[in-house]
C-alpha cells in the first residue's frame, strides 16, 4: 500500500490502493463478457485478448515481410527468402514460434479463402517457402548446466512445420561450422592479448573449438562482459545460420519487457550508438542478401506472452540461467524493469518507445568486427582520453594488430574493463588457461575485412589512417608533473 506519511503515528496516512484497472471489470473490446486479464490498466476477456495478441504480432511483422517496404497496407505478402527463428526455449521464443506457426505456416481450411471469384485472397499461399528454428546450446561452456537440445527439438518437431537447426556456442570458434555456413576462408589464426586491446597470431595451442570458447570466456574481465559476449556470440551464430539457410528474415522472441531490459542494459554498457539496431536491424553480410532482424513481440509485455502460453497450453522448456549471471548489469537491469512492470506497467512501454526515437548524431564509420554493429567515429579517441589502459607505451611486439580500432565502443569496453572479481570460476576448464597465450577470437572476427587488411608487424592499424584521432597516454614521473604545473604552485614560505 502506498503511503504519504507515517502510518504508525497517523491512521489517516495510508492512501487507498489504486486499482490496477480502469473503469469496470468488463472487457473493453466486446463489452459483453467479464474481463480475464489486465494489460496496462485495460481489461480484456480471454477471447478478445488472444485476438489482440495476434493483431499486435502481425502489426509489427507484416510491414517488414515484403522485400520492398511499402507501409502497413499491402495486397500480398511474399518474402524474398526463407524464415529463421531464434529459439532459446524461453517464454518469448516459444510464443513467437507458436504465433508464426498459427499465422503463416499452418494450412487453413477452405473457409479461410475469402474474397470474390475474380479476386481470391490466397491465404493458403506460404509467405515464406521454408521455416527454420535455430537453437544455440550454451551448456558446454558453464559448469552445472543441462543440455536442453532434446527438449527443444521435441517442441519444434511437434509442430511438424519447421526444420530444427541445433547449434552450440563453441561453433563460433569452429572453422568447420564456418565453412558450412559459407564464411570466407580463414587465413589467419588471430587472438587477443588477455586484458589488452591488441590482436596477435598464434592461438593454435587450443585443440578444440570448446577449448577456444572457454579460453575466450575466461578472458572476459567482468561478469557483465561475460554475459554480453555470450549474447553477442548467440546473435552472430543465428545471423550466419539465417544467411546459410537463405533466410530473408530472422525473428527473435524479444518481448516489450525484454526489449526495454536490452535497451537500458545496452546503453549502460556503452552500446548507445547501436540503440536503433537493438529494436530493428538489417544485417548485411558480404555479397549476400541482407537479413532483416525483427522482434515481432516487441509490443507484447511478458505478462501477455505468459497468458498466451498458458491459454494455448504451450510447453516452455525454460532457459537455464548462466551461473553467476546475477552479478551482471543485464541481470540487475532485468530485476529493475520486472519490478517496474508490476508497479507501473506503462513505464516499461515508455522506455521502449522513447528509445526508439533515439538516433546517433553522426554516421557510422564501419562495422564492429565482433558484434557486427555500426561503429562510431572517434570512439577510440574518447576512450584514450578518459582512461589509462596501460602504463607502458611501447610498441615493440611484432605481429600485432590493434583490435581496438576494429571494435565498437561497447565491445572494446567489455574487453578492457577491469574488475577485481575474476570470471574464471564460472567457466569450465579455466585452469588450463595461461595468460601468455593469445586468447582466440570468433571465426567471423578473423575473416573481418579490418583484420585482413591491417598491417602486420607494426603495432599500428586502421587507426593510423586517422592519425590525429589518437591521443598518446603515458605515465609521467613526479619531476615531469612538477614541471608541467610548476608555475601554478605556491611557495612553501607563503
Amino acid at each position, binding site marked *: 500500500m502506498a503511503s504519504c506519511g507515517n502510518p504508525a503515528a497517523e491512521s489517516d496516512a495510508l492512501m487507498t490502493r489504486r486499482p490496477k484497472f480502469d473503469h469496470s471489470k468488463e472487457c473493453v473490446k466486446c463489452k459483453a463478457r467479464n*474481463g*480475464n*486479464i*489486465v494489460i496496462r490498466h485495460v481489461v480484456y476477456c480471454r477471447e478478445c485478448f488472444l485476438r489482440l495478441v495476434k493483431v499486435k504480432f502481425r502489426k509489427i511483422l507484416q510491414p517488414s515481410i515484403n522485400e520492398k517496404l511499402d507501409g502497413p497496407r499491402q495486397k500480398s505478402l511474399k518474402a524474398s527468402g526463407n524464415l529463421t527463428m531464434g529459439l532459446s526455449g524461453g517464454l*518469448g521464443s516459444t510464443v513467437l514460434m507458436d504465433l508464426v506457426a498459427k499465422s503463416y505456416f499452418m494450412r487453413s481450411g477452405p473457409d479461410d479463402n475469402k474474397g470474390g471469384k475474380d479476386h481470391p485472397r490466397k491465404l493458403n499461399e506460404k509467405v515464406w517457402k521454408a521455416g527454420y528454428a535455430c537453437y544455440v546450446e550454451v551448456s558446454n561452456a558453464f559448469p552445472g548446466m543441462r543440455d536442453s537440445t532434446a527438449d527443444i527439438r521435441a517442441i519444434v518437431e511437434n509442430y511438424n512445420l519447421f526444420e530444427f537447426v541445433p547449434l552450440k556456442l563453441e561453433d563460433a570458434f569452429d572453422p568447420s561450422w564456418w565453412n558450412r555456413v559459407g564464411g570466407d576462408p580463414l587465413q589467419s589464426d588471430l587472438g587477443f592479448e588477455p586484458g589488452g586491446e591488441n590482436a596477435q597470431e598464434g592461438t593454435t595451442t587450443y585443440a578444440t573449438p570448446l577449448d577456444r570458447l572457454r579460453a575466450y570466456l575466461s578472458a572476459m574481465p567482468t561478469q557483465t562482459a561475460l554475459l554480453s559476449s555470450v549474447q553477442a556470440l548467440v546473435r552472430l551464430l543465428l545471423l550466419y545460420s539465417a544467411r546459410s539457410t537463405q533466410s530473408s528474415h530472422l525473428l527473435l522472441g524479444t518481448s516489450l519487457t525484454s526489449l526495454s531490459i536490452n535497451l537500458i542494459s545496452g546503453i549502460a554498457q556503452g552500446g548507445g550508438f547501436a540503440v536503433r539496431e537493438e529494436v530493428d536491424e538489417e544485417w548485411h553480410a558480404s555479397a549476400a542478401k541482407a537479413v532483416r532482424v525483427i522482434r515481432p513481440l516487441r509490443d507484447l509485455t*511478458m505478462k501477455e506472452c505468459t497468458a498466451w502460453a498458458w491459454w494455448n497450453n504451450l510447453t516452455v*522448456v*525454460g532457459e537455464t540461467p548462466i551461473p553467476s549471471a546475477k552479478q551482471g548489469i543485464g541481470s540487475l537491469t532485468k530485476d529493475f524493469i520486472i519490478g517496474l512492470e508490476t508497479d507501473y506497467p506503462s513505464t516499461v512501454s515508455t522506455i521502449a518507445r522513447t528509445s526508439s526515437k533515439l538516433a546517433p548524431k553522426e554516421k557510422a564509420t564501419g562495422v564492429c568486427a565482433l558484434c557486427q554493429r555500426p561503429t562510431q567515429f572517434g570512439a577510440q579517441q574518447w576512450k584514450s582520453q578518459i582512461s589509462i589502459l596501460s602504463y607502458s607505451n611501447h610498441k615493440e611486439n611484432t605481429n600485432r594488430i590493434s583490435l581496438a580500432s576494429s571494435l565498437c565502443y561497447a565491445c572494446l569496453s567489455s574487453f578492457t574493463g577491469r574488475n577485481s572479481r575474476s570470471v574464471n570460476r564460472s567457466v569450465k576448464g579455466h585452469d588450463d588457461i595461461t595468460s601468455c597465450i593469445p586468447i582466440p577470437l570468433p571465426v567471423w572476427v578473423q575473416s573481418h575485412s579490418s583484420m585482413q587488411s591491417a598491417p602486420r608487424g607494426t603495432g599500428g592499424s586502421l587507426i593510423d589512417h586517422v592519425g590525429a584521432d589518437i591521443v598518446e597516454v603515458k605515465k609521467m614521473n613526479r619531476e615531469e608533473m612538477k614541471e608541467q604545473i610548476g608555475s601554478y604552485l605556491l611557495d612553501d614560505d607563503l
Partner: protein
Amino acid sequence: MASSVSLKIEFGGGLELLFANQRSYELTLPRFVPISNSTSVSSVPSPNLNDTGTESAMSDDDAIPDGLKRVDVTYLLHHLRDHLLKERPELFMDKETVRPGILVLINDTDWELEGEGEYELKAGDELVFISTLHGG
C-alpha cells in the same frame, strides 16, 4: 458453511521447480486464519475448531473471531511458502506478495481484477501461479 476451504493450486512457467517439481496440488485451508498470516500450527485454528457439523450452522455474516480474518490469497501465499515450497523462497515471494514477474490467475482470471492478495478464497477456487521469468 464449512469451516474449511478446499482449493486447487497449479504452478506453471517453471515455478513448479520450486515446489518439488509437482505442477498441481489440492489444499484445504481453515476458513478463518490469523491476521498476521502466521501459518504455524499453534496459531492456525484447526479446520474443525468452529465446525458445528452442518453447512448451515455458519453463514457469511458470522462474526469473525478476534485476531482472525477470512482466508485470503495473502494467507495462501504464506501457506505455500511455509509448507509446500522446497527451495529459494525469494523466487516466490517478495515482502507480503508474490515476486514481480509471477502471474496469478484466480479461476482463470487475472488476480488484479479480483483484488490481488485481499481476495477471499471460496471453496473450489482454482489458482494458477505462472512465472514469466523462465527465459526469453
